[in-house]
């Protein structure tokens, strides 16, 4: 991973949005960062989310992505808590 950084926009929903007090965050991550990196950074930056993040999925540009997925620069990432529609 190079020393350069990138900015990633993160969307938050439902309880995550409520806990964070906002619907989206800009996150500065090293280039080549993965969803796993974002997950750890987010828990550190917004401690109110730490308890629920292990239960959440993440999506990159509207596709679900595992912790090992590399986040492209400029990507839109979303945190998807367990769903309850219907």
């Amino acid at each position: 991973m190079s020393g350069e950084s990138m900015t990633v926009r993160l969307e938050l929903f439902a309880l995550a949005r409520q806990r964070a007090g906002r619907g989206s965050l800009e996150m500065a991550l090293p280039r080549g960062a993965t969803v796993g990196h974002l997950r750890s950074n987010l828990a550190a930056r917004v401690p109110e989310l730490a308890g629920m993040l292990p239960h959440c999925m993440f999506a990159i540009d509207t596709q679900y992505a595992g912790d090992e997925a590399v986040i492209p620069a400029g990507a839109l990432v979303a945190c998807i808590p367990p769903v309850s529609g219907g």
Partner: protein
Amino acid sequence: MIALTDQPIDTAALLEQVASPSAGAVVLFLGTTREMTAGRRTTSLDYECYPQMAEKKLAELEAEARRRWPLTGCAIVHRLGRLEIAEASVAVAVSSPHRQEAFEAGKWLIDTLKERAQIWKKQKWADATSQWVHPGLDSANIGGVVPPAQP
């Protein structure tokens, strides 16, 4: 046809939408806001979604149902925003030549929508607390109970 809407669901329009001279059966499912849950009174529900993913997911569900069953019509609508008791939050309408397929497809669509669509509800209780519903995430520590606002 799929839709996410903040307007009351127009069931007559949905039935019209799935009607077909080739259909022998129509099944309409409505999910409605129930007042009592495990002995507690709900006063209203708020739904929100991740629009880009939820729309894509509903479209996938329609396509998958049409692949699995010989449907002559299929419509899925989910409502967003504030709902009062007894209002419909979701409607699934399907038609098919014979009834077995319509029941199976309708059941599968609502079961799978509830598991997969990127939609969330917040329950507002009669004691003025409210709570986002996140299955598997309901312990006191990480759950979403919000105390009533202080006056």
